[in-house]
């Protein structure tokens, strides 16, 4: 999470061994591959439809019963990621060496609004940005150094970079990182007034006609650990994390600097494709596109936010998980609604999903900070 030069100082490879996404659609990757916009489903997560699954888990049910929709959303994502990583909550796993780091843009503003209405102690007790992460730690009984990071657009990927740092320092053996946001009325109100929303109701990253973003919500979590440890549980891992970079700001220079750092720390000169952060904002898309051009030239670029919209805290993690699936399935999903290239976005946009076997993927998240993470395929 801080400026670093040189290679990723890992003594051994780091892998992502599990992922969990709770989104407005039942199968986010299918929707991204097929180009089916989340707006068709209203871009809201129906947590109540899934929450019953938590009763079947080994999570501490006392806290689960106290959880609101936001906490549940995060816990569903955590448990899905832990399941995929085959992490069983037993004696083999030291819970003091497992942490949860979540990124969010607004936290759980729904509970703040609830407190304003009903003034109950229970509502206020949960009205902190860190409560979702904390509630998850209590449910999962993890006692490692956990925190909540706040940023616009880039929080989820910042949490991933934080996780890498914690693994590198040896503070943790396993880390759940990710991001969440829920579109409480005050979140929507703020976005309405900032003028960042698309008036035409279309998300078209990098396209000449883009006029603003469309919002969506959800929670996305990955499990990261050293590869040898995953193998001990019989888990191969989904992809290796080989590089990362981060800079303050969302201008071309900051983004280019973050991307350059990520490549340098991965000891790579290029990647096979980029999962861009572009969310259909006129200026942001252009700044990112010009940075990509500068650092990676004609490397194919896609933005899943064309399908998913801008999901705030989850956005960077959704991008990352899409990068993982892209590597695993040998497919680059298309940027829907991209039809008119323009000079201020001089990048090679993948308009339609195509079979291509990326071995290395760069994932960007640009907002308060410019963050880049490089993933690599785990070769047999």
């Amino acid at each position: 999470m801080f400026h670093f030069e040189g290679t990723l100082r890992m003594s051994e490879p780091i892998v992502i061994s599990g992922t969990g996404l709770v989104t407005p659609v039942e199968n986010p990757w299918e929707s991204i591959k097929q180009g089916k916009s989340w707006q068709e489903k209203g871009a809201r997560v129906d947590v109540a439809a899934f929450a019953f699954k938590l009763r079947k888990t080994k999570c501490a049910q006392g806290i689960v019963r106290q959880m609101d929709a936001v906490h549940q959303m995060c816990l569903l994502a955590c448990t899905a990621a832990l399941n995929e990583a085959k992490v069983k909550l037993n004696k083999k796993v030291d819970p003091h060496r497992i942490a949860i780091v979540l990124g969010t843009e607004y936290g759980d503003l729904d509970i703040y609004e609830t407190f304003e209405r009903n003034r109950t102690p229970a509502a206020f007790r949960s009205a902190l940005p860190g409560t979702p992460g904390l509630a998850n730690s209590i449910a999962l009984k993890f006692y490692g150094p956990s925190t909540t990071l706040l940023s616009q657009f880039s929080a989820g990927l910042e949490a991933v970079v934080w996780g890498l740092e914690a693994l590198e320092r040896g503070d943790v053996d396993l880390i759940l990182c990710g991001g969440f946001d829920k579109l409480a009325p005050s979140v929507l109100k703020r976005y309405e007034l900032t003028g960042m929303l698309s008036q035409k109701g279309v998300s078209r990253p990098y396209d000449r006609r883009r006029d603003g973003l469309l919002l969506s919500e959800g929670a996305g979590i990955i499990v990261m650990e050293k590869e040898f440890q995953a193998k001990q549980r019989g888990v191969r891992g989904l992809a290796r994390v080989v590089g990362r970079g981060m800079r303050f700001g969302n201008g071309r220079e900051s983004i280019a600097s973050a991307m350059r750092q990520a490549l340098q720390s991965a000891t790579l000169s290029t990647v096979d494709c980029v999962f861009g952060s572009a969310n259909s904002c006129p200026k942001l898309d252009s700044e990112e596109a010009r940075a990509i051009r500068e650092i990676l030239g004609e490397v194919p670029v896609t933005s899943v936010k064309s399908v998913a919209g801008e999901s705030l805290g989850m956005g960077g993690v959704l991008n990352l998980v899409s990068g993982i699936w892209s590597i695993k399935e040998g497919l680059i999903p298309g940027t829907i609604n991209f039809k008119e290239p323009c000079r201020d976005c001089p990048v090679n946009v993948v308009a339609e999903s195509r079979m291509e076997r990326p071995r290395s993927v760069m994932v960007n998240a640009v907002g308060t900070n410019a963050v880049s993470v490089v993933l690599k395929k785990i070769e047999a």
Partner: protein
Amino acid sequence: MKRKVVITGMGAICCLGRGTKAVIEATRRGESGAQSIERFDTSELRCKKGCFVDEAEFEDSELSRGHHLLKLVVEEAVKDSRFENNEEREAAVLVGSIYGCMESWEEMHDAMMGKRDEVGIGAYDAFPLWWLSTAVAKTLKTTRPVTTLSTACSSTDFALGTALYAIRDCKMDVAVVAGVELLSRFIVTGFDKLNALSLTSCRPFDKERDGLVLGEGAGAIILESYEHAQKRGATIHAELAGFGCSFEAHDLAAPEPRGVKRSLALRNALADAEIADTEVDFIKAHGTGTPANDKVESLALKRVFGKRGTQIPVSSFKSAFGHTCGACGVLEGVVSISCIRNNLIPPTVGFRETESGMRMDIVGGKCRSHSVKTVAQMSAGFGGSNTCFILREH
């Protein structure tokens, strides 16, 4: 061998005044900045007190209150550090807070509920916590990453520890750690509903204690690698020698009652600083003044220091300028650092005696002269994110 990290700049503002000098001197005088709340209607609250920054400090500023306070303390800290080559532009920035500019959110929400007219975009812009860090980054003109983190009341302590590790790992040479908390109707009402607020005064560790008094303010501490500080001839206030934390994952608000996890944060900090518990001269307690916290804290200290713990001076500055939530790590840290520099420990205002079974040397009444070479500063956040950092004389 661990890379040494030192403190070369500080800034502070709270109910006791603006600037580290004003805050430290008032704290030493044993003043309490608690006053009747006038900023908003308290007719439905049991508690009518808070520690507010002088309204005059906010006049003539177009910035939101939170940004304004952060700007003041960051500018003071940078000036104090006497950077000559704009080193602050290469600093990583970490900001801690819990509620940030809540009054901005309140105004917007009130307008949404039809309780007031619509307000301008300025109000809506200000409330996200990350907006605070953006404001700090722009004040410093930094290009390094900017991190806003929240671990409840231990936010800025955690931020200091994070920056310490990053500088030790040679990730950067300079870090600016800042925190701010503002009092608003939302926060005071919330703590009131939790029955956490005192109806009398904040008297940490006193047997008659009945709760905390909230405070607002901001603080900034600049951390620097010792080599970098030495090379440019900086004035070094103290060394940040170690940091430790522990996470209870026990309850959303209540602390683990036996103080086991709390004591672990302290042990981890001592281990990280590579010192024995016998070297600690003064403990800056979290000391909120609530029956629960102070009891748990006394148990935690006993676990680590044993019998000697009854003789180590302990003080809580929350008795002076209130519980400044996410900002308390940096704001109280500034006063802790002054204890080392001047061998003076400010008193715990309002303290008379502990309850039976709680044997501690609480500094009460007047400021105490005492040789202070090593300080252990404790903090604990809602939900059990406990921290301790060790300050050492340089």
